[in-house]
């Protein structure tokens, strides 16, 4: 006899398959544990639904908690028509929900043999490949003998293993960070544990999924945020999707501003993410607008996510710079999506953006501004969002332009920059520069991966035909730190000589 390596069973829940690196253990029981309202039943239901829809694998739903009628109704909310699955013989219920009103007296020794027989019968009746047991808490409430119930659940797990079905058993926990499950179930039933959390942090709910153990099989570690989407169920946001395996393009695309292309050594890279950082009013939205116009002029499809300004404002401002966004939209090459950051959580924003990108298939994506989303989430949640968004854009190999508003007028960095600077391919700074009682604007390419670029700080002006980048600032130091100082020519020469000495 040879020992075969553990096989994984694809669940069909995209994000879960991603974090589990291929699915849950085939032919085994996986325990899914979580507090009340942590979406255990949804995950369980989705596991069966995806099995039927994607893999033609029938499933059995053993319910200890809700009645089949309640489950049918709840699942319909996600567009899962359990009635139809049942009629087609792909879905079978084993109803073990507690019956209220009927008296039950215990007189002597018992086991749950009838339940085991019913589960086995249901599996055989529809040739099930997947089984869900949801959730095991109420069965302990029905039968006072914890030891018996525990060993009977183990027996069910063994029967399911013999039948070769892959199953999910859900269990309650009392705290999001505490014992894995009540009644010490995990030690008895399953070596595979997935934990769902729904933590309240800074008055915001944050759902995460974590694979705690998987019978020694490889899986991604740590918590991954997820959200519940009305018509498709659980959507896990895989942060590690940045697999650093994306093919890298040498192709340059115009930034929409000729001089900027020169500064960047010939334009942005086809699949790069560019961060534009600057104070409010410094010219970031203009840069976005020109980036989009440049794309459209090049025949590329462009998508703008605007979180600060309404369509009306954007279009009016663009017109003021001589750019006709209406015309671009009419051509079908531009889609502008305006949305207030506060209307939903960041996970939901990300899913929405993903859906839009999948639908429109843009070649350029701009986000104005990314930092506007900082305020709707915790720092951790924001960081995950930025990672997820970057991953989503990189996966599709499109060019991305994000803007970030710095908190102070003259300089400094924002949270966005601290979180994102290492995952962007290029960073452009736009700054106000005060010179002799006058406020001017400066721009520099701080970094540009894989390409030579100008290191100087150039002055730029804005007029009715957009942005014009001019010469370098001479005789000024300290622009980046937000404290520009004028220096005399003598001083400049002295400093240069200092560096030239051997």
């Amino acid at each position, binding site marked *: 006899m040879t020992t075969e390596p553990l096989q994984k069973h694809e669940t069909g829940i995209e994000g879960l398959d991603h974090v589990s690196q291929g699915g849950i253990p085939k032919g085994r029981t996986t325990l899914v544990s979580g507090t009340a309202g942590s979406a255990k039943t949804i995950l369980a239901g989705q596991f069966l639904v995806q099995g039927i829809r994607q893999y033609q694998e029938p499933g059995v739903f053993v319910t200890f908690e809700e009645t089949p009628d309640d489950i049918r109704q709840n699942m319909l909310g996600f567009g899962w028509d359990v009635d139809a699955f049942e009629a087609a013989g792909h879905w079978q219920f084993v109803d*073990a929900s507690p019956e209220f009103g009927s008296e039950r007296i215990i007189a002597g020794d018992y086991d749950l043999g*009838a339940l085991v027989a019913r589960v086995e019968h249901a599996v055989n009746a529809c040739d099930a490949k997947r089984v869900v047991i949801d959730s095991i808490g109420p069965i302990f409430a029905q039968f006072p003998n914890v030891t018996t119930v525990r060993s009977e659940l183990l027996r069910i797990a063994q029967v399911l293993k013999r039948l070769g079905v892959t199953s999910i058993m859900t269990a309650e926990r009392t705290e999001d960070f505490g014992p894995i499950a009540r009644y010490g179930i995990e030690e008895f039933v399953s070596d595979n544990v997935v934990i769902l959390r729904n933590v309240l942090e800074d008055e915001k709910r944050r759902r995460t999924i974590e694979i705690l153990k998987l019978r020694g099989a490889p899986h991604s570690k740590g918590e991954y945020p997820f959200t519940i989407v009305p018509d498709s169920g659980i959507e896990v946001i895989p942060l590690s999707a940045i697999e650093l395996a994306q093919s890298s393009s040498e192709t340059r695309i115009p930034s929409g501003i000729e001089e900027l292309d020169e500064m960047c050594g010939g334009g942005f890279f086809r699949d790069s993410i560019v961060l534009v950082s600057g104070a409010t009013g410094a010219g970031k939205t203009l840069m976005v607008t020109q980036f989009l116009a440049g794309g459209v002029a090049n025949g590329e499809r462009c998508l703008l996510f605007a979180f600060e300004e309404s369509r009306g404002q954007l279009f009016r401002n663009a017109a003021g710079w001589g750019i006709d966004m209406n015309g671009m939209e009419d051509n079908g090459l531009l889609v502008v999506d305006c949305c207030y950051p506060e209307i939903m959580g960041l996970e939901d924003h990300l899913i929405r953006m993903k859906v839009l990108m999948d639908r429109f298939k843009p070649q350029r994506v701009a986000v104005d501004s990314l930092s506007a989303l900082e305020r709707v989430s915790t720092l951790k949640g924001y960081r995950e969002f930025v990672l997820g968004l970057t991953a989503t854009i990189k996966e599709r190999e499109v060019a991305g332009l994000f803007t970030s508003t710095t908190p102070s007028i003259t300089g400094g960095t924002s949270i966005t920059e601290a979180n994102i600077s290492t995952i962007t391919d290029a960073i452009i700074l736009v700054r106000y520069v005060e010179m002799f009682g006058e406020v001017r604007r400066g721009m520099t390419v701080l970094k540009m991966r894989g390409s030579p670029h100008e290191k100087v700080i150039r002055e730029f002006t804005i007029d009715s035909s957009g942005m014009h980048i001019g010469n370098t600032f001479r005789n000024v130091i300290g622009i980046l730190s937000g404290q520009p100082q004028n220096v005399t020519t003598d001083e400049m020469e002295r400093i240069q000589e200092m560096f030239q000495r051997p």
Partner: protein
Amino acid sequence: MTSAEKVILKLYVTGRTPRSQRAIGALQKICEEELAGSYDLTVIDVLEHPQLAEEEKILATPTVIRSLPPPIRRIIGDLSEAEKVLLGLDLTTITNNISE
């Protein structure tokens, strides 16, 4: 005595295990002693008829269901605790009625 007053009992067991045998024996004994022929007892093996267990939503075995007279009563276990069985099946009052 009419058939309407007959006590109808169903005993669900899983296979011919010692526990099943104990339950069958105990129930038969109680019925003979307390109901003296005015009962109808069916033993159902859920391994052979899982569908019947599904219909009655049986989880534990052995389980006795008294379907008549109403209300429906359920007793779980090998029925080794005779007093609880009598109480649970509400047989004491029935036998009293019969004797009156």
